[in-house]
């Protein structure tokens, strides 16, 4: 009885008796040349990017003597927040010595309105360009795109004159205006392409239902556009937060954004350079784009996934 059971369970005879009969999923060995190459390249690149970050963070927790006599790659002997506190509250940023915090709030005051205004206008632009073709809309779009290829520097002086004429030169409004203008081409392109990818019939259905320009925009288009808004948000917040040029030119001394103040700290000629404070200040300045990226990156993936289920 048991004899026959064993016989039945045995593999069918193969020619040599040693080869495995292929059956089920194909075995996937982990160490293939392909995988080894991919992983080595990935690890190499992550070192390349993470190493400076490591040095910065490690240094910011060290004391000055430790930096002077120790190895730049060594871990701090103990975690010391003095440099961070000093960077935030009392390091000299040019004429004043109040740390980076005023710059942080300036950057917030610049970034929030610029982001909101530019994204809103670009979204309406993109929507109008796709769905409400007006006479010359193609030309309008072509000019806008062409505008994005002209280097910033060309516009700089004319914009200084314009903001001066508008009597807002050296104020927050001026930087906000400039950021909004320069965000327009790329954001409009982004939104135009996104809205063009939505089914045209949806718009037509809403027209037949009697909805007008704004109603369709707010009630039909916006709820379907979360993913592209997140993309625009990441683009604008990081771009505007990291901006140096427009801040230094248009904001005026009392409104300098964080990046300009950081530059003033790091390039300060007085005294010996406080590397730990510089490092802490740099990480602080980079923190906002980093957080935005992590938070909305997740949102972004969720948004894309939700958008994939088309109604």
């Amino acid at each position, binding site marked *: 009885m048991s004899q026959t059971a064993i016989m039945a369970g045995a593999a069918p005879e193969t020619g040599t008796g040693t080869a495995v009969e292929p059956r089920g999923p194909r075995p996937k060995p982990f160490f293939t040349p392909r995988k080894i190459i991919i992983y080595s390249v990935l690890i190499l690149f992550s070192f390349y990017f993470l190493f400076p970050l490591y040095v910065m963070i490690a240094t910011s927790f060290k004391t000055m003597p430790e930096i002077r006599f120790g190895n730049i790659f060594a871990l701090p002997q103990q975690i010391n927040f003095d440099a961070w506190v000093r960077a935030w509250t009392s390091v000299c940023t040019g004429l004043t010595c109040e740390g980076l915090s005023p710059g942080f709030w300036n950057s917030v005051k610049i970034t929030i309105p610029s982001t909101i205004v530019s994204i809103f206008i670009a979204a309406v632009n993109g929507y109008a360009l796709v769905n409400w073709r007006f006479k010359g809309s193609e030309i309008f779009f072509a000019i806008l795109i062409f505008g994005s290829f002209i280097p910033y520097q060309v516009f700089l002086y004319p914009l200084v004159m314009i903001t001066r004429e508008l009597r807002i030169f050296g104020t927050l409004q001026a930087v906000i205006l400039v950021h909004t203008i320069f965000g327009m081409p790329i954001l409009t392109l982004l939104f135009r392409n996104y809205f063009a990818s939505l*089914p045209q*019939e*949806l718009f*037509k*259905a*809403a*027209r*037949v*239902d*009697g*909805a007008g320009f704004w*109603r369709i925009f707010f*009630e*039909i288009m916006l*709820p*379907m556009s979360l993913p592209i808004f997140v993309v625009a948000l990441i683009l604008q917040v990081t771009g505007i937060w990291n901006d140096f040029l427009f801040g230094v030119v248009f904001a005026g001394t009392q409104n300098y954004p964080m990046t300009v103040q950081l530059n003033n700290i790091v390039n300060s000629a007085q005294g010996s350079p406080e590397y730990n404070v510089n490092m802490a200040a740099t990480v602080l300045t980079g923190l906002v784009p980093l957080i935005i990226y992590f938070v909305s990156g997740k949102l972004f993936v969720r948004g894309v996934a939700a958008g994939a*289920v*088309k*109604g």
Partner: protein
Amino acid sequence: MQHSVSIRDLSLNFGSVKVLETLNLDIEQGEFIVLLGPSGCGKSTLLNCIAGLLDVSAGQIFIGGKNVTWMEPKDRGIGMVFQSYALYPQMTVERNLSFGLRVSGMKKDEIERRVARAAEILQIEPLLGRKPANLSGGQRQRVAIGRALVRDVDVFLFDEPLSNLDAKLRSDLRVEIKRLHQRLKNTMIYVTHDQIEALTLADRIAIMKNGVIQQLADPHTIYNKPVNLYVAGFIGSPSMNFIEGTLDGSSFTAEDGTVIPVATYDFADKAKATGKAVLGVRPEHILLGDDAAKMPYSLEVEIEIVEPMGSDTLAWTTIAGRPVTFRAASDVHLEAGQKLVVGFDPARGSFFSSETTNRL
């Protein structure tokens, strides 16, 4: 008699591309009109013009006797159903149905009454709380029809509403649309490239080609008396058999010399029935065996290919040097190489002038 929808000399260009040219069409109250044509012939464009979603380049559109040429879509008294359903994805079915009514500022209880009625007619009451993403294709299209229904309009416009559905659902929903029309008795303009939908649904079919209506007639006339070669070839599946040759008074001589008597054929104008022509015969009008022998024209042929279709069988052979198909009942045994007598009455066929391609 006032027409429900009248289209007068309508033209539409996209830039320099002329899609519709001086098109005229009158549709009666309560009529089910199907616009039928291959993809790209301008059916959707015409429908969008009627809906007011496209500005016409020239001409006029009347709906219910009113000139609506410059009116907004919402003021035209139309409801529209799209191929892609075009449901608002973030709204529930109930809010999809009521969106247009809410936009128009209608009273809440009236909105509820209309949504409930539409949901009842289309049997989508259990779905009212769901989002479109959680509906099947057939359910989505029902909701889309409901959205037109709640508007309580005189004219329904359908743009290939069944094309995204699978074959089974398509035939189910087709019957439902027909039932809906019988119940509501609205004017319906229905665009499709599917001739079965057109033949089964329409009171009248308008066959379009390159933005021009080729023939506007009831399905029977379209099928049996196509006005030109294009319509003849477009309608019917398997398509009509064509034999080229020359007409002279009482007979038709095919290119290979075969002579077919035409005495029984009812020419529109006997005097003009001469010269190069094309004879069209539908596969089901070619008969077999004893029936064939009684026909004005019959001959013995050899079967080349047999295609059993379930309900009947399609066979391929050669007549007058041309490949010809004919239908046989499924219980008739046919096989390749078999010889048998087939025949037809030219009176049930169609003659077209080779020169103008028009019916003779």
